């Protein structure tokens, strides 16, 4: 279908965006890569009166190392994450994960800021943000606010971003030689949203695990960190631990049935993924 009529503006400064949001309120929508917004407009699931195209705002672009963080501008496209040597070095989990996001033509347009702002429950990047302990940088008229990923995803398609705020960037702690990452998902076809997925990050101390994060997506309304990961502290990353976690993870998750899979099947798939993903991380 074709979308309803709307007006279109393409500001080059964030202040212009705030002016427009203040003036138009709910009638205005931010347009980034458009790979999620445009389908909803075309299907008339949403009919804003004004689209604010942020693609030419330089303040939202770029990748840079700042102190012990990799700062990824909200407008960074999936394809840039995929091929960036900085990302591969400092946030290799994103390099692994991004190939599972959609298809090449969609990755050429879709942005990390769009994916995190939308917060689709089956999306890869929100779960990666959780596993990495990332921080979301929100910009409003009166300044910046930093929100840790574990409080950013509030409910289905609902985040801690205020109506008058723009997601400016995401900051990811730089990977060290003590970090190991793993990623896996089960989808019906390559590039589809996952039935269940897992982004994992382990911080090692000598031969044992200091901290493990297991971020599941596709399970419920928001990506979740499984408390089963706490069982790993102080243990080596070995086959015994993987068995323990495979058994424990189901109890810590509260999946909802959806068209993709029943709750029981999702628990099973979560356990399968723990085996695969941690298995990869052991190598």
């Amino acid at each position, binding site marked *: 279908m074709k979308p309803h009529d709307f007006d*279109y503006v393409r500001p080059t400064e964030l202040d212009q965006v705030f002016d427009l949001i203040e003036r138009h309120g709910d009638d205005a929508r931010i347009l980034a890569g458009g790979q999620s917004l*445009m*389908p909803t407009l075309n299907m008339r699931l949403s009919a804003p009166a004004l*689209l604010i195209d942020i693609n030419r705002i330089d303040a939202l672009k770029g990748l840079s190392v700042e102190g012990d963080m990799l700062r990824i501008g909200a407008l960074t496209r999936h394809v840039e994450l995929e091929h960036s040597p900085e990302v591969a070095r400092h946030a290799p989990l994103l390099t692994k994960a991004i190939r599972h996001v959609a*298809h090449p*033509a969609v990755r050429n347009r879709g942005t990390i800021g769009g994916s995190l702002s939308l917060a689709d429950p089956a999306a890869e990047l929100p779960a990666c943000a959780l596993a990495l302990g990332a921080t979301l940088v929100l910009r409003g008229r009166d300044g910046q606010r930093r929100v840790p990923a574990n409080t950013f995803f509030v409910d289905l398609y609902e985040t801690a971003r205020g109506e008058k705020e723009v997601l400016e960037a995401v900051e990811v702690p730089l990977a060290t030689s003590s970090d190991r990452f793993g990623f896996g998902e089960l989808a019906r*076809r*390559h590039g589809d949203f996952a039935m269940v997925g897992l982004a994992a990050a382990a911080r090692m101390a000598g031969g044992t695990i200091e901290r493990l994060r297991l971020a599941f997506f596709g399970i419920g309304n928001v990506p979740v960190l499984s408390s089963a990961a706490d069982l790993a502290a102080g243990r080596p990353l070995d086959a015994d631990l993987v068995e323990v976690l495979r058994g424990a993870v189901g109890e810590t998750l509260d999946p909802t049935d959806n068209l993709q899979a029943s709750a029981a099947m999702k628990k099973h798939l979560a356990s399968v993924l723990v085996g695969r993903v941690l298995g990869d991380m052991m190598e």
Partner: protein
Amino acid sequence: MTTPISISLTVNGERVEAQVSPRINLVDFIRHQIGLTGSHVGCEHGVCGACTIRVDGAIVRGCLMLAAQADGTDVTTIEGLSDSGDAADLQAAFVARNALQCGFCTPGMLLTATEYLESGGTADRDSIREFISGNYCRCTGYQAIVDAIEQVASQRGRPSK
């Protein structure tokens, strides 16, 4: 009433200046305002890939980008790709391998396969399948399309590793 937007872009090497309604997407603009109907429209929500167009060197969904957003860009459609001859071997292989039946998906497939090969893709069938996973074909069952792309990758000196 919404305000029309003036855009200026290059389509297949030719300069185009136009007034567009903000809500018109790039593929509809190309088909109806410019009159190049090689790019097809299927699902209109990003799933089928029939509308694949190259914008500034990278393939995109023509149904998920507004014509207004193409202001200042360099657009290539299947017509331009055909005329350039850059995909002549692919087109020949599609014909030889029977990689098209109704042809509806073919322009999008050719643009996607072109990006695959130009970005260093090899004859590895799994990689080919992964790359074309966003392009639906309801006729061929994909096997013949993968055959054709595999053949051209080999011909261009990029056998599977």
